[in-house]
């Protein structure tokens, strides 16, 4: 389960960022922001020609001492970042993938909302609850 989930706009500002409340929120902000460099690197590493067939899932972006950071980029260059605890060994690639899929679907729903102004921060209850479901339950 994730400890921090973030959605970042094409222009690299956060649309949504949520972390486990008991932990240091600032740290996660920094982590997610720094991970964008890796995301960019990964995107540019894949050739331009391959950009179309490119898989959205970017895999493990980088591990830190305590966390693993996973990334995913939609076709509209919106980035999803999931930070998971390194100690959580049960989390396999497949689970991460499915989490991203869920996140993407939910994000698509948000975008489909006619009252949502693209580029605004996401303030959707449905999205919130979906994200909470994916987060580590703070005890």
């Amino acid at each position: 389960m994730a400890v921090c989930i973030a959605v970042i706009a094409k222009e690299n500002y956060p649309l949504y960022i949520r972390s486990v409340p008991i932990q240091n929120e600032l740290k996660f902000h920094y982590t997610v922001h720094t991970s964008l460099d890796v995301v960019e690197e990964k995107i540019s590493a894949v050739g331009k020609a391959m950009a179309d067939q490119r898989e959205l899932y970017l895999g493990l972006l980088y591990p830190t001492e305590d966390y693993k950071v996973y990334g995913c980029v939609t076709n509209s260059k919106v980035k999803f970042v999931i930070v998971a605890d390194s100690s959580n060994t049960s989390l396999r690639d497949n689970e991460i993938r499915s989490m991203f899929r869920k996140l993407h679907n939910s994000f698509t729903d948000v975008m489909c909302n006619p009252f949502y102004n693209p580029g605004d921060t996401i303030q959707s209850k449905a999205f919130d609850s979906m994200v909470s479901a994916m987060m580590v339950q703070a005890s």
Partner: protein
Amino acid sequence: MAQCVQSVQELIQDSFVPKVAVLCSEDAQKITRKNNLNFSELLRPFCRLTSEGHMRDSNNQVQVVKNLRISVNNVVTRPSVPTSGVHSPAQRRLLSEVVSASQPAEGGVANVITAGDYDLNISATTPWFEAYRESFLQSMPASDHEFLNHYLACLLVVSSSEAVPVEQFLKLSQEQHMIQHNGEYTNPKWFIPNTLKYYVLLHDMSQGDEQRADSVYEDMKQRYGSQGCYLLKINSRTAAAGTDEQIPDPWSQYLNKSSLQSQVRNPAMPCDESSNRQSINKGLRFNHTTPALTLVLCGRSCKLLDYKGKHSCELPSDKPTRRAKSLQFYTGVAAGTSHGACLTLNDHNRLRLFIQEFTFRGLLPHIEKNIRQLNDQLVSRKGLSRSLFSVTKKLFGGGKVPEKSIAELKNTSGLLYHPEAPELQIRKMADLCFLVQHYELAYSCYHTAKKDFLSDQAMLYAAGALEMAAVSAFLQGGAQRPYPAHYMDTAIQTYRDVCKNKVLAERCALFSAEVLKSQAKYSDAATLLIKMTSEDSDLCSALLLEQAAHCFINMRNPMVRKFAFHMILAGHRFSKAGQKRHALRCYCQAMQVYKGKGWSLAEDHINFTIGRQSFTLRQPENAVLAFRHILTNDSQQTATQQGAFLREYLYVYRNVPGVCEVALPQLPLPCINSSATRVYFGHERRLAEGEKQAATHVSLDQEFDQDLAAVWQDLEEQVVAAANRGVVPSTFYPTQCCLNSQTDNLHFPLAVVEEPIIVEVAFRNPLKVPLVLSDLSLLWKFTLKDFSRPQPQDVMVGDAVTITNEKEAIAPRVRKGKGGIPSVCKFLTFSLLSWQARLKLLPRQTGQLTILGLVYNLASTPSTGDSTINSNSPSVRGRQDLEIQGPRLNQTKEEKTSVSHGPDRRLDPTITPPMPLLEVFFLQFPTALLCGEIRKAYVEFCNVSHVPLCGLRVASTHPDFFTFGSSSLATPLTPLSPTSFENCSAYKTLATPPGATPGSVTAVTLVSAADFGSGGGGVFGTGGKRVAEIPLGEGTLTPGESTQLPLWLRGPDQEGVHEINFLFYYEGAEKGGKISHRVLRHTVFICASRSLSVRATACRSNTLPEEEGRNGSMLVFVDVENINTSEAGVREFHIAQVSSSSKQWRLHKCINPAENKDCKLTTRERGKLCFRATRCKPHEATSKSLEKYTFADLSLGNEQIISSTTPCADFFFRRCQSSESWRPLIAVETQGRHSRSQGAGPGGGAEDITGVVRKCNEVDLDIIVLWKAFVVEDNKQVILEGQLHVALQTIGKEACSLRQKEEAQEMVLLKFKPELPPPMTRPSMEQLSHLIKTNLHYPESYSHSFVQKSLCMIPVILTLSNCSLAQVDAIIDLRHKTTSPESLEVHGSFTWLGKTQYKLQLRAQEVMRLPLRAGFLHAGVYNLGTPRVFAKLADQGAMCETSQQTATPALIIINST
């Protein structure tokens, strides 16, 4: 990694240089002391060799030594600090000192890196890091596992002035030998047992005997060989002579730094002189040179200085001045003279030559010799033993490796080879080769040594060898050997993990990173550097993190965010290490990445840290700026966090020195929505005063409504036009009392002196914590101008001076010029709310005022959440400016393409001379009325200014709602007329003469419309003028005077709530002021409820005209229905009187059934009244060319209301006005009708038939129904009165008192094409039938004796009257038989006798009688209405139109007798 001044090769070479020790005799020291230097210091600037050296390696190949540098140091025998692998506190202090001394140059080199959408301004170099590295490398303790910084040679220096210099040499030589071999001193480590001794004879040119020196030198040459000794002549200049001569001082740049280092350095450490780099020295601050100073004063003694001493002797100048100056100062204090004062340039050259000679003739051959020796030893040993040994080790030791390694690991640091151990010899040789730049050989030696050490599990030695192998492989250059990066990694790992020697690991990492950087492997370098960070040393970690950050930004795809993040980490470590300046710099650089990218949490964090660091660094301005950012941004922080930020900000703010003396600083909180600022000119109104109800006017509490503003402007335009004889002056500009963002603010608003200006400022608190504002006041600027003088004198008074608590002294000066400013002092708390403050200014003089902003105290509430405001909670005083941007211009193309804003002069009012000020009060003003109800109220006008007032006018959106009465009729101003009805009737009444029957005409009055329209100019023709002049007594109101006037109100015809706007207009008595007029607004809401509905129809009367004397007579049916729905209120309505008003018609008589005399109508009851109307007398209609109205009153009750006087007639005429203005379409139609009918005179155009026909159907009669309503109100019966108007226009068409239908017709479709004139339709039969009115005149019954005479002949007179104004041809056909079945049933028919067809011509309105005779054969009832009358207009020629007069049955009874 940031760019360095040195290349990597240079760096490594300079880090490992041959070291030379110095032993000096006392006398020699004296000589050098003259220059304020000791011998090693004296040589230091000249230690880099400019020329190439040569040496032969073991294979006799010539090796070039380029750019060699040697390091000369005094021998210090202090016992070494044990090499523990960590820095001693003193060393740490030194390093931290070095780093903090090196700060980025102000406005120094910064390169802009563009990465993606980031433009970063990053200092390209990091001199503090280089300084750190250099000082770190120099502070490396000499260890046993490597020989690079062991002394290779020793200079023995003896003065020529010595009595026996040779003896002295011997003494020194023995001393050296003792130091090296006695075993007493461990510290100065010597490379090779037989250290090279070089004998230097120092000769003082200014003192000694040169010849003696030469002879001693000759002697020395004999003894030590010419290559082993040197005669150095210095001090060729006398101190006194050469003061004016400017000699370069190459020592200064070395000395202050090296002395700084040496004071904390382990004295036994050979003190390497620093390389020649300006950049570091630039960064040196003067106050950091003070330790150097103390050191110099202490002379050669290298005792550790107490650091506290540094502070005690701190120099007074703490500002970094220019380097030259500071140096001068430094030297001046130190010894009165500069370094090398006794040295000429020639001496410099001699020193240089000496070093060169020493190196090339002494040192290099010595090294060469040693290399050869070592090589020989190694070669001899190699063959058997070593290799055999290693093989056996491999064979037998293989299985035990893990066990052994663990054991080995434990004591690796303890494992020591004997200094002369064979394993070390190869290392020694490698080091020697390395020092003389013979890297190839060095590499192979290191490589071999590494293998040996590894096999011995001597990990420290192995790591050292690995490190140096990698370095020398790198320095070989070319493609001979790839750089073995893994060697480095292994070395670092071993140093750190196995040997626990952080210092060595760090050194190794520094080299490795530098090498990787030079190979553009930034990512590896960064990883390495980050790996090297540890909890042990914050400073080191900070520096390494910073370098890692630089690595990230220098990558091919710059990783900006990683850069930023590591910068922050570095900043964090810097701050932990106490390097506040560096921390601040790091955060600032990182800020560039985070700024404005939406990562608010991170941004806040950085800003907060910057703020704190800036504050501790005494840069409160920057701190305030940073804190501002946190507070102004829409923060996502929690409330407690925000509260903390706020308190911190306030704290910092209060500590900004001198902030309140010059100008108050800008405060960031709360946000002021400048554009929402509203400005109100004038007093705050009292809304009610006792019974009086004041005019609402405009107040700040009202919302601005664009539509309403347009209505008011329209009204004002009308009233101004009325006041200026129908023309709106070009300078007209609508009065705006309350300015806001939507009003037109292009003009300077006008304010009147002595009348307050109220400024409403909208605040918003973006934080989640409450803010406390207090002592709010406005900040303004005022220019005095006297408008009464032709040339106003501009006097600036109190330029932007504010009245603040701190400036009580300034306040009186302001007051003199401007007048008291009541500032609103408030304490308030609010959170996340919008809130408005109203501040009042009272101008006392004329001039130009500019409101600049606000001053207030800002404080936070205590964090306890206590709502009571603690008066001693920290508050700061500051200002915020009000800058209002005008609306965006969008008129011209340029304005559309660019973004430009118009001016907004809301806050720049012009103060004008006094103007009259009107206050209006209403008395007995109702809020609810029945439709058409007449009520009398009073209005009081009061001039509250000191200036007379005149030209009072009023304009209203509903002119038919009120009247002031007609002035010409001399309306009595007394509220009640003596003849009035007992319950204060608004009407003027007369008691009905007792004899008169109700319903008969009692009064006919002729009234000119002008009499009633005079209030607002002509009633008709001006069309929709809604302005009335208010009849003031003398036309002016003197100051303080007030007048009460009666006012009649009539409930609107439409039910519902009506908003009625009054605009009172008035002028000052003096013309030509800045303000031409002033206005006062009043809005009332009247709730109108339904009363009666009156419908009226006019019918042509068929009676003969003669009966009523004139040709015209009509029947008017009036249907009155009580449509009042309020059951409780109105009990019943009485129709008191019906009056008519018309130019042509008048009501004549009531022909109602008589029994319902009083005509009462209870709820939902309908009554019908029938009246006969006649035309007015012809002379009345045409008299005086004045179109006078005839008012006819038909009283149904017992008193007559004089409808031709004030209120009734007023409302009648006002209704006409308004109906015209409200129904422009109809008005046009009416006009068209008039013009057509005029054109249709005799011989008029053929197309005018319609007009002619219509004309004869026109009535134009207005019925006024006056009613009384009996209302129960609070158990009291109240009689209300009212009047309703019905305008009859056409015969047969029903007219209604309500306008609903007509208004529905107003909704005309929008037409985009000009409408074609409607085709001339022929008048319909129906219409034509009205041209001629027929009437049969005959006896109603006739007795005839058919017995006597079978034929009964009865004369019948057919009266034909032409209703139209044209000539009509009529044909009367008598032959026509009735075809209706009823008439057939009639038993007998009759015949017309005589001529059966007549052709007649009727002139306009002519009445003709035609005698006919009818013949009857039987008795019975006959219908005589059979004659057919065909009419056509005489001038229609062929277009003969016929019409049938639909005859009413004209029955005649023929009796037979």
